[in-house]
């Protein structure tokens, strides 16, 4: 049993324990959840060890045990440089979500915290599973607690939002299940590493048409989760109706399941199909970037604004992945983490405002900075991070993505950059309308951050600065892992995708391609 197994199963243990606590002891349950989730976070910090002090790149903390004999399903978990940070993001945000819900969740608190921990279990599992079936199991398991979090503790239209969220995701994952099973019937294993090896050495050789359909089966499931335009319509509903902790987990971690899936499974397993579809996908991603930003701009509701900004930000991640460049991949992963930290923080602070003023409408605010200067400061830093100000985290990710994209097709980068500009528009405008101006009587009475709220904001803000300045803590481990994924993708490159390459690079690539073809003969 490795540390990773502990990190995966502690949330489940905590979930089961909470079920046995008496529901009257709300205070005790809250404290227990906080202590448990903090303990999980501390344990998960140990996972960094091999990546900071050792040899990053290969899988670490690997456990491979048989679970079901026939069909051969294995409990195969491990982490690489991509999984590591997503796991840490999950374990960091869970205690913060417990703290966020400390006061706002009074009703049915026991079940709330229990579901939060069950959600953590599912999410951590998704990022560590190296068996396709196990991945699917965790993928679906994470769906149930989130459904309840939205549906029970959400706002007015919570039921509609919860059901929509569930059915959308379910439809996608059913296609993925067909894909996984089809692949199993060809490969005889669900094991990711074996399938990858088989696909590369040709012992598993689906025809191009099969590859394309398999790619699409996986891709649609992930694209719904990301969500990629035009499959994004569940997202504003779910985000707006969810309680703060739900929105945070949804935006910061759950959306990453989609992009993680694209990067881990979709692209490396079916590189040729991915390349051939990339034109369409990039177009959709760019539409998402610009459309999300434009729609965010006109939202009267703060949460909806942040939700649409997620559509825009996640478009960058998809763009980075489908640029098939080292920088694009690194930027995409980095942007996943950045978005997790800064959008999570934005949702948390919108939640703070809601707890104080009981409204999500921007019109209900104005001049908030006067009574609550500290909240205003924290919000400003987060907002600037989200826009992509240098020295803060999002800048690094967006820069890498744009750089990677520009290498492939300069026009794409230009269009995507429009999204960055628009994000400055809607965020600054939001900040202006909420925090500046003359404070009305109700707004003047608002209290500033208390100790609990500090404890939530400060770690996230530190992280934003850290990730914006000391990228060396993160990028090397990410790069080595993305390079492993990029390898087979690059080997199967196809000419016509590269029409937009700078001339020198294009010449070089076509040369190596020609060489490859000669080798193949």
């Amino acid at each position, binding site marked *: 049993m490795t540390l990773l197994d502990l990190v995966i199963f502690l949330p489940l243990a905590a979930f089961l324990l909470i079920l046995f606590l008496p529901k009257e002891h709300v205070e005790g349950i809250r404290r227990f959840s906080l202590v448990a989730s903090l303990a999980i976070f501390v344990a998960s910090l140990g996972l960094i060890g091999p990546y900071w002090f050792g040899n990053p790149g290969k899988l670490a903390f690997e456990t491979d045990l048989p679970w079901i*004999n026939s069909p051969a399903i294995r409990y195969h978990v491990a982490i690489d440089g991509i999984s590591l940070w997503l796991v840490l993001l999950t374990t960091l945000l869970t205690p913060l979500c417990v703290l966020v819900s400390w006061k706002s969740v009074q009703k049915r608190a026991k079940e709330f915290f229990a579901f939060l921990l069950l959600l953590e279990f599912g999410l951590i599992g998704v990022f560590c599973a190296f068996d396709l079936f196990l991945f699917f199991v965790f993928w*679906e*398991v994470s769906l149930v607690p989130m459904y309840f979090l939205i549906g029970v503790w959400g706002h007015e239209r919570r039921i509609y939002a919860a059901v929509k969220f569930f*059915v959308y995701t379910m439809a996608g994952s*059913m296609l993925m299940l067909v894909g996984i099973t089809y692949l199993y019937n060809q490969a005889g294993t669900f094991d990711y590493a074996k399938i990858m090896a088989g696909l590369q050495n040709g012992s598993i050789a689906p025809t191009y048409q099969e590859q394309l359909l398999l790619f699409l089966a996986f891709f649609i499931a992930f694209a719904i989760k990301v969500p990629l335009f035009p499959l994004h319509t569940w997202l504003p509903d779910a985000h707006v109706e969810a309680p703060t902790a739900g929105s945070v987990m949804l935006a910061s971690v759950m959306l990453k399941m989609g992009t993680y899936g694209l990067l881990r499974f979709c692209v490396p397993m079916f590189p040729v199909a991915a390349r051939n579809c990339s034109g369409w996908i990039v177009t959709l991603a760019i539409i998402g970037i610009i459309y999300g930003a434009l729609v965010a701009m006109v939202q009267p509701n703060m949460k909806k604004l942040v939700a649409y900004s997620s559509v825009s930000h996640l478009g960058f991640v998809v763009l980075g992945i489908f640029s098939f460049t080292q920088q694009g991949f690194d930027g995409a992963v980095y942007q996943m983490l950045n978005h997790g930290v800064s959008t999570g923080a934005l949702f948390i602070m919108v939640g703070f405002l809601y707890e104080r003023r009981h409204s999500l409408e921007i019109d209900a605010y104005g001049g908030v900075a006067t009574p609550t200067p500290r909240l205003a400061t924290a919000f400003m830093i987060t907002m600037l991070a989200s826009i992509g100000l240098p020295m803060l985290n999002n800048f690094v990710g967006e820069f890498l993505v744009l750089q990677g994209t520009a290498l492939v097709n300069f026009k794409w980068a230009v269009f995507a950059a429009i999204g960055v500009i628009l994000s400055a528009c809607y965020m600054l405008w939001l900040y202006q309308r909420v925090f500046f101006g003359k404070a009305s009587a109700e707004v003047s009475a608002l209290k500033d951050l208390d100790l609990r709220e500090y404890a939530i904001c400060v770690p996230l803000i530190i992280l934003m600065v850290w990730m914006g300045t000391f990228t060396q803590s993160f990028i090397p481990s990410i790069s080595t892992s993305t390079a492993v994924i990029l390898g087979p993708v690059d080997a199967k490159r196809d000419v016509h995708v590269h029409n937009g390459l700078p001339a020198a690079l294009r010449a070089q690539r076509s040369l190596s391609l020609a060489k490859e073809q000669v080798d193949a003969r």
Partner: protein
Amino acid sequence: MPANFAPTAIDYLRILPEILMIITGTLIMVLEPLIGGNKRNAFTSVTLVGFIAALVAAVAANDYPGLSFSNMLIVDGFATFFRVLVIAVGIFTVLSSSDYLRREHAASAEYYALLLFSVAGQCIMATANELIMIFIGLEISSIATYILAGYLRDDKRNNEAALKYFLLGSFATAFLLYGIAWIYGTTGSTNLGEIRNFLMTGGSARNLTLAGTAAALMFVGFAFKVSAAPFQIWAPDVYQGAPAPVTLFMSAGPKAAAFAVFLRVFITAFGPITNRWEPFVWSSALLTMVIGNFAALLQNNIKRLMAYSSIAHAGYVMVAIAAHNQVGVAAAMFYLAAYACMNVGAFAVITHFSRQGEKYVNVDDLAGLGWKQPVTAALFSIFLLSLIGVPLTGGFFGKFYIFKAALDANLVWLSILGLLNSAVAAYYYLRILVVMYMHEPGESTLTLEPLSPGIRTTLWAAALGTLILGIFPSLLLNFAANSSGLGK
């Protein structure tokens, strides 16, 4: 070769479960007039003892596999699997019924006797190796079930259910019998193995056509019994009208037994002419899933909703039959066991909740159950999530295994459409979860009494079964895979 008509001891051992159940049932009917009204609870215990003895006998008989009674019966893993399954369903039906019957002032011994006869019939179906035996088992099971469906004889809906079930059921059985006659005329045998041999070797084109027609006629009979489209019309009315514990029984026991003979006849006897029936089963499977799932979306009565859901689930099992490979048979077996667990559990909750006169059977009546009786609601949620097909439940694994078999058999489109269907299905199961957890408790929920011991036992056992099948499917899957070699 002259048949040996003198049964040996081992022959009797092989049908000991049926013998035990028939004896218990007859005993109960004889004793009822002799025992006074206030001691009638004793019948519950006697029935349980009878069932448990039969269960033990069924497991024990598995150690003596083989043909008996002149090849009319066969005891193999497949038969044992379904015998244990239907007897277990019988046990849980008894546990869930006793309070219901008392509540409706209808506690009498004949209910239990009918239940025993019905399960005995299903056991005969599971072990039958010959078309006449199948027919006899089917009739024993069906006739008892027709009466059970109309058990509360003063209740209008019960009467409607029983009459509908009886008339349509007899009609369907006639088709089955006609099919048997055709196959006997064509092949000169009613033994499944001999039919198979005939079709493999001595089949002229005309004979094969005749056998195909027989298969079509028998398909009608079986499809009716498993409520597969286009012969599913009876199911919603009967499920809604029958007493809740009887619906529990019908949706799990007779259905599993009907699928057992369906599989045995079509895989063993009609195995050689697969290409003739596969398209029909394929279309029927798809149609069943679509009708079941889409009609369930519109239901408010929870029994009717579950009836359509049960149609949809029959469709999934039909997918496994359409795959007609060994994995498919194992998948169907596993799925029926998982389905029995989750459906028995779900109907036990409905039985518990409906109260006297089945007053509360609308989905909306369940409002706030999650906060009034958290344990009941949590167990119900497990069953619903399993019916949706969420991982770590038996329902998911069963579904996965079925569609894996379908993909093995290259039924790619059927798999895709079937799985998308289950996304549609998520919607109506979620509605129940929504009502339970996201609405405030209403009058129907606030007046709810605590669980009775019988129903509590059923719920926990079913939930445990659902989870075990979902987390450690190998326990059952290996057995199913080893016993799925029909017609070999």
